[in-house]
């Protein structure tokens, strides 16, 4: 297999592009095209260098990736729309990675773009009878959270602390929905509006618009070899018996869930373990899932994550800095764009370009992304 590098990443600040209350109005394909243009510029490449594209959008309808690319040019290369709910754009990157690693193409584009409706998002993966019963995403998460609390002894304070940490990180991230604050406290989180018990308003990610893009290429195609970031592990796993659409379980664990399965694969493939990582990204559309993801990915023992969050283990400056860009709770969650936004933060960290959020000397990074299906994607990046 060829070594695959990330040549550039582009990002449209996550926020609202609805033209209301003085906010700018942008179409979903404009956001996507902007992100692609920025990624090309970062990579010092031209549109005609691209040989294959994978694009994603969860709520934009079917042809959004084609709409985005046609704003840059129509060169006729394969453009494939992939969907893995919240993991969509990271799936796009993985397909481009597989093409390049196996010698099919040299330079590929992956991107995700989203304009999200407001309100609680329905889990359209659920069978019709479940949707009629009211199982939207926060509702499904709430069940998983209750089960986790019972198994681990985690408390609502633990979940609130995750949100507080992430919002603190987001303040330093100019691309985040919650850039420049405000900072929140544990009390504020615990007193915020109840969404789906025990999940409160400030534990949930914000519905956001935004876009992200990555140029991936075989290492020899990089325009600059300085601080090259390569993908050394990539894995994708889906549903195993006993888990719901989000990969959570309301029963006792009987067998590995998709996150554990994907982690096992990515650690094997990369030859690294959790202890080798300098900076990580964990997927948490709702703050409690940060806790069980940290455990499922092997960064601590089952039931330990709450305690470690309290001790500052996952803070910038802690032992294992996590979600340094604010995570989904702080960065906002334009579903189709989130997977690559996670990768972007690790990319910037490994290249030493994360500004005030920089983890000094970060060389190896881990990303966990999940999406309804369930899908779990894990990547290990290395400088």
């Amino acid at each position: 297999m060829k070594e695959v590098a990330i040549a550039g990443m582009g990002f449209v600040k996550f926020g609202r592009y609805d033209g209301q209350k003085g906010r700018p109005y942008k179409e979903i394909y404009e956001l996507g095209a902007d992100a692609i243009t920025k990624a090309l510029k970062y990579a010092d490449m031209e549109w005609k260098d691209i040989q294959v594209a994978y694009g994603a959008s969860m709520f934009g309808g079917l042809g959004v990736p084609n709409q985005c690319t046609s704003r840059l040019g129509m060169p006729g290369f394969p453009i494939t729309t992939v969907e893995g709910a919240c993991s969509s754009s990271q799936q796009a990157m993985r397909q481009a990675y597989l093409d390049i690693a196996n010698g099919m193409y040299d330079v590929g584009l992956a991107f995700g773009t989203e304009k999200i409706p407001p309100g609680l998002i329905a889990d359209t993966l659920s069978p019709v009878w479940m949707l009629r019963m009211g199982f939207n995403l926060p509702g499904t998460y709430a069940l998983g959270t209750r089960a986790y609390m019972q198994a681990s002894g985690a408390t609502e304070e633990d979940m609130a602390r995750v949100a507080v940490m992430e919002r603190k990180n987001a303040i330093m991230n100019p691309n985040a929905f919650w850039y420049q604050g405000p900072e929140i406290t544990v009390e504020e989180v615990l007193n915020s509006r109840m969404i789906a018990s025990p999940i409160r308003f400030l534990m949930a990610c914000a519905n956001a618009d935004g876009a992200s893009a990555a140029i991936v290429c075989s290492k020899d195609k990089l325009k600059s070899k300085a601080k090259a970031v390569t993908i050394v592990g990539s894995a994708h796993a889906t549903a195993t018996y006993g888990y719901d659409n989000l990969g959570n379980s309301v029963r006792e664990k009987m067998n590995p869930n998709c996150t554990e399965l994907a982690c096992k694969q990515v650690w094997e493939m990369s030859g690294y373990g959790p202890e080798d990582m300098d900076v990580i990204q964990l997927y948490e559309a709702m703050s409690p899932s940060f806790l069980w993801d940290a455990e499922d990915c092997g960064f601590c023992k089952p039931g330990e994550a709450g305690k470690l969050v309290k001790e500052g283990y996952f803070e910038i400056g802690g032992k294992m800095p996590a979600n340094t860009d604010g995570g989904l709770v702080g960065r906002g969650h334009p579903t189709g764009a989130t997977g690559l936004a996670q990768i972007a933060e690790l990319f910037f960290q490994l290249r030493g370009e994360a500004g005030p959020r920089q983890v000094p000397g970060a060389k190896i990074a881990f990303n966990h992304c999940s999406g309804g299906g369930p899908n779990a994607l894990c990547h290990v990046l290395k400088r």
Partner: protein
Amino acid sequence: MREVAIAGIGLAKFGRYDGKKGRPRKLYPEMGGDAIAKALKYANMEWKEIQAAFGGTYYGGLGGTHQCVARVGLTGIPIVNVYSGHSSEAALRLAYLRVALGVHDIVVAVGAETLPGGLLDNQTMPAWMRMMGLDPLPAAAACRAVRYMEDYGATVEDFARVSVMERKNAALNPNAMFQQEVTQEEVLRSRMIASPLTLLMNCANADGAAAVIVCSKNKLKSKKKVVTIASMVQTSGTYGTTPSGGSVSVSTKVKNPDCIELAAKQIWEASGYGPEDMDVIQVHDAFSPAFLWNVEKCGFCKRGEAPRLLKEGYFEKDGKMPANTDGGIMGRGHPTGATGIAQVAEIFYQLREEAGPRQVAGAKIGFAQGASPGPNAVLTVLKR
């Protein structure tokens, strides 16, 4: 790249599964699951041998492939939903590529659809075009049909002849939605949908599913009549073409190959075959005039020649270049997400000599075209 074989295909009969007028009620995840089960049975394989799944539904919402797969088993394999094109031909290409490149050995591709009624819209158009009312698919096809008539002198009778031929073939295909033939008169007199396209020149909205298992040749359970994928290519829009794939707005002086012409050029180069080598072909025609320009763009005749050849019976089952022997999209019905694999399925059955009364004697090499809004084109050459 490794040689990739098709181990098995499963189809759920295309039709309406809406529980109305005495018809059975089935949703697409169930049909998709059924199609996978049939493909496994055909391949003599078990679900646990499958290492990855690619698939899609065009209108079914998120996670369509996950929902189909959940009915067969939850083994944690990578599942990727693909929406390019009418989904399943692009899904099949990824499945093919992953086996060819050695990432996986045995992969399933599935397409399944429960389609709404009425005119479908082209979601690849930007908002302003949709606001202008250009997005109903028959409207875009009508524009291209008029353009084709202007450029090459084709007539509505030519379009009707495509429908007549395909419905005749469909009557011999138990998996097709339509089991009755139609006459040219009936086609021309049917209700106008988007001038010049009458109802019977438009494909029918259908429900259905199709699944295919591809594997490296050494994983086949039986080495008899092995059908391999000689080549598969995918392209997207080129300069001067609209999201529907046509070039309605472009001057006739501009001659830039569109995605289908580009893909055809690529596949004839990559496979080492030419159009003249094909024994049986499947051409994408959600609207009957599309059959005409697509056989031309794929290289089976010169531009503007298709209407004459069709009239002479060139594309009939016993003609020189049998096309759409299963009834094509006009006869088979068009469950969008499932259509791409259904196109390839007919070639597979023909090459395995399992096409019953539709069999083209001695068919050894075949071609299938998938096309869709985006625009996207996916072309396949299969050989025995």
